[in-house]
C-alpha cells in the first residue's frame, strides 16, 4: 500500500531479537488528519459508490488492504525483511 496515506519508519534492530526483524514499519495517516474543516462543494461519489466506500466524498476516502494480503504481494514492510 504505497500511497500518501501511509507513513514508514525504520525501528532500531537489536541483535538478540528471535523473530526475523521487520526493518520498515508503517502506519496510517487517513485524510481527516489533514482537513481541519471540510470545505463546501467538494466533489461527490454517486450514491452506490458512496455506500460501497463508506463516504460521500472522495477527499475523505481512505483505502485499507489487509496486512496479510500486503505480505503475500510482497508490497510492504515484509519486503524489507531478512
Amino acid at each position, binding site marked *: 500500500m504505497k500511497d500518501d496515506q501511509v507513513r514508514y519508519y525504520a525501528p532500531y534492530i537489536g541483535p538478540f531479537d528471535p523473530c526475523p526483524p521487520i526493518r520498515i514499519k508503517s502506519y*496510517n495517516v*487517513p*485524510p*481527516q488528519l489533514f*482537513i*481541519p*474543516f*471540510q*470545505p*463546501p462543494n467538494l466533489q461527490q461519489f454517486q450514491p452506490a459508490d458512496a*455506500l*460501497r*466506500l*463508506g*463516504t460521500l466524498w472522495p477527499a*475523505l*476516502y*481512505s483505502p*485499507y*488492504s*489487509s*496486512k*496479510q*494480503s500486503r505480505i503475500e504481494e510482497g508490497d510492504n514492510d515484509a519486503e524489507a525483511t531478512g
Partner: protein
Amino acid sequence: MWVYEKKLQYPVRVSKCDPLMAKFLMEQYGGADGELAAALRYLNQRYSIPDKVIGLLTDIGTEEFAHLEMIATMIYKLTKDATPDQLRAAGLGDHYAAHDNALFYQNASGVPWTASYIQAKGDPIADLYEDIAAEEKARATYQWLIDLTDDVDLQDSLKFLREREIVHSLRFREAVEILKEKRDEKIYY
C-alpha cells in the same frame, strides 16, 4: 425517542462459518472502543455540551447503533449453527458454557462491557477529544480485524465501518473548531 428501521445500514455477507473470527469481532461489540461504547458515550455526553453540537452527538450516537447491529449480524452469521465442538475449537467453549449461541456484550477476550470504558467529563473540549480518540481507536481495531480474516465479503463490511470512523472523527474535529470560535465569528461558510 428512537424509532427502529428494519434494515441494515450496509449489507453484511460472510462467506464461511468462522467462529474464531466471530470471537475477534466481539472486540467491536462489547469492547472498550466498540460500537456499544461509542453509542452510549456520545448519547450520554449530550446533556452537558453546548447546544450547537448536540445534534451531531445525537446523530453519530444513533449511527453507532446501526454499526452495532452490523457487528451483531457478522457474529450471528459466523456462528450460526456452529456445533459446540466447533465453538470449543475456536476458543468459545467458555462462551458456550455461559451463553450457548447467544450474543453477549463482552470483548474478544470475554471481558464483559463496563461503563468505565466511557467518560463524560462535563468539559466540552475534554469530551470531544475523547470522542476523536475513540474514533481513531475504533478505526485501528477495524484495521486489525481486516488483517485477521481472508473473507473478502467480511472485509468489505469492515472497510465500510472503518471509513465511517474516519468521517466521524472529522465531524468531531469540526465540532471542536465550532466550540473554539468566538461569538459572531464564523469559521464555516
